[in-house]
């Protein structure tokens, strides 16, 4: 297991390098001069020159590139142009909030999505199935901020059950209350994805010969579903949950903005509004690294749910 993990990590290095290159190119997409874009047209030539020197923009492109890759690999993502603090420190300050939100959403999505998908598959082509499919398709269609706004209007503005602002709080109970709406928003979207994949994966497995054999042998329906069908249907489900992690992160950014909740989303919005390009660039690297990491974890989870997946491959 450990050896596989290390090999998988090593395989991620070229991906990581390529990702850093893409980010480097993207940041240099700024039409004209990045320094002018940041400081505005009215900035004095001295200020522009100072900023160019600080960002290393006055150096040849290959020197900039090598310096950028070297720094990034050493874990130095630069310093924020606005706060002057290291990007990693800025990220570390708010990361727990985003992780907490995504984890809560994953739990909600799995706890509700998995049984709903199984149910829809078992009631195939009846009204329950049509209802579930329409429900999950609706969930898939929501941009993260639209569902967040509708939840906010319903539960915070009209029913007044939960707070409108989900800002940080030291009190654990308030903290949990603040988490409910944002987590529910992301969780429902995740639920829609999981329900859909679970349904189609279960339908595939339920048609297999071994399930028919088990049924013919008189295996109890609950045992048939849990042990024979769901266990084998889990592999594609895990893949899709891993794949949609990127979507989840994107939606968490929007969710945090709507609920004015601290986290990476608010950090991104701040960086956008203040044209803090080093912070944006750093955040991009952090997000993409997360996705790469989740892909590795997904590969590892395969082996746990499906013994046929050989780790030595």
């Amino acid at each position, binding site marked *: 297991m450990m050896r596989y993990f290390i090999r998988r990590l090593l395989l991620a290095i070229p991906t990581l390098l390529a990702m850093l290159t893409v980010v480097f190119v993207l940041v240099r997409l700024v039409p004209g001069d990045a320094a002018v874009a940041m400081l505005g047209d009215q900035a004095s030539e001295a200020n522009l020159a100072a900023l160019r020197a600080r960002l290393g923009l006055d150096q040849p492109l290959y020197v900039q590139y090598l310096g950028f890759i070297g720094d990034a690999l050493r874990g130095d993502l630069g310093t924020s142009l606005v706060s002057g603090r290291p990007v990693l420190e800025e990220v570390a300050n708010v990361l727990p909030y985003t992780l907490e939100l995504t984890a809560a959403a994953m739990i909600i999505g799995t706890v509700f999505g998995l049984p709903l998908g199984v149910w829809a598959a078992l009631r195939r082509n009846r009204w329950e199935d049509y209802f579930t499919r329409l429900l999950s398709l609706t969930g898939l269609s929501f941009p993260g901020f639209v569902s967040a*706004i509708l939840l906010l209007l319903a539960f915070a503005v009209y029913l007044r059950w939960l707070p409108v602002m989900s800002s940080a709080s030291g009190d654990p109970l308030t903290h949990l209350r603040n988490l409910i709406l944002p987590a529910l928003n992301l969780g429902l979207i995740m639920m829609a994805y999981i329900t859909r994949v679970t349904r189609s994966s279960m339908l595939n497995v339920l048609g297999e010969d071994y399930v028919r054999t088990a049924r013919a042998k008189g295996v109890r329906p609950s045992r048939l579903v849990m042990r024979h069908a769901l266990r084998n249907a889990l592999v594609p489900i895990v893949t899709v949950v891993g794949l949609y992690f990127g979507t989840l992160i994107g939606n968490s950014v929007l969710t945090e903005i709507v609920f004015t909740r601290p986290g990476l989303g608010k950090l991104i919005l701040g960086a956008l509004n203040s044209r803090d390009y080093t912070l944006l660039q750093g955040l991009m690297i952090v997000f993409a690294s997360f996705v790469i990491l989740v892909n590795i974890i997904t590969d590892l989870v395969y082996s746990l749910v499906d013994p046929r997946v050989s780790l030595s491959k």
Partner: protein
Amino acid sequence: MTSATMTSAPSRQPNALIQAFRRNKLSWLGLALLVFIVAIAVFAPLLSPYDPLAQDILHRLEPPSAAHWLGTDTYGRDVMSRLFYGARISLFIGFVAVLIAMTCGSAIGLLAGYFGGLFDQFVMGIVDVMLSFPTLLLGLMIAAMLGASLENLIVAIAITEMAPFARVARAPTISLKQRDFVEAGHALGFSHIRIMGVHILPNMVSDIVVVGSLWMATAIRTEASLSFIGLGVQPPTPTWGGMIREGFENILNSWWLTVFPSLAILITVLALNILGDALRDAIDPKMRSE
């Protein structure tokens, strides 16, 4: 998106699409909704009761009434008229962005698959990295770098959606280039461009178009999200995401400013997703949802 994994070119019956529609009853709902929204976008000038940009400060923030069915916004502009004109922008951006992504992405995949070797590995390596960025964040980054405008928004969305098309075009190219008719083309001394354009591309164009229609839902969702963040088409031009952004400031007392554009986005994306499901059925019988 799972649509990115559809890379095979299965043989189809000519009326596969009609059959897919017959099988999947929901698809009629999707089609009806989409036709409705496209009609609104096309006939916006005829359907809109007011000028979407006309301000009327005396009647600002009015709730839905007989005069203004969907209420008015902070500047007294008619929400329904803005919603109708917003449909034009959303559909236009979604369509053009996907068209660009489809053209450029397929060209990249075609070239990579046709020439193979190191070029293929290099190009597909970049494509894989592009796929590892969350779509919304990549779009956000590019839009932020380029600056907020209609053209830049289209470019940003097109770049984020290029990678899946490269994948979709590459796989059939690899199998098609080994077929006899391509070999024959080589023997006759046809140029690479002629073989790719005349002999390979037409064999996979329907797959690419189907995948394109699937990605339009994502494009419209990304457009709305970026406009909500403030990276979209700038005011006063009405866009759905932009309307929600403006209405969000008054969320505590003017629900109609956010609810109606939200529903418009939801219905459009839902209609496209339902249709996408039906098209997926048509293109790949293995992925049938029934």
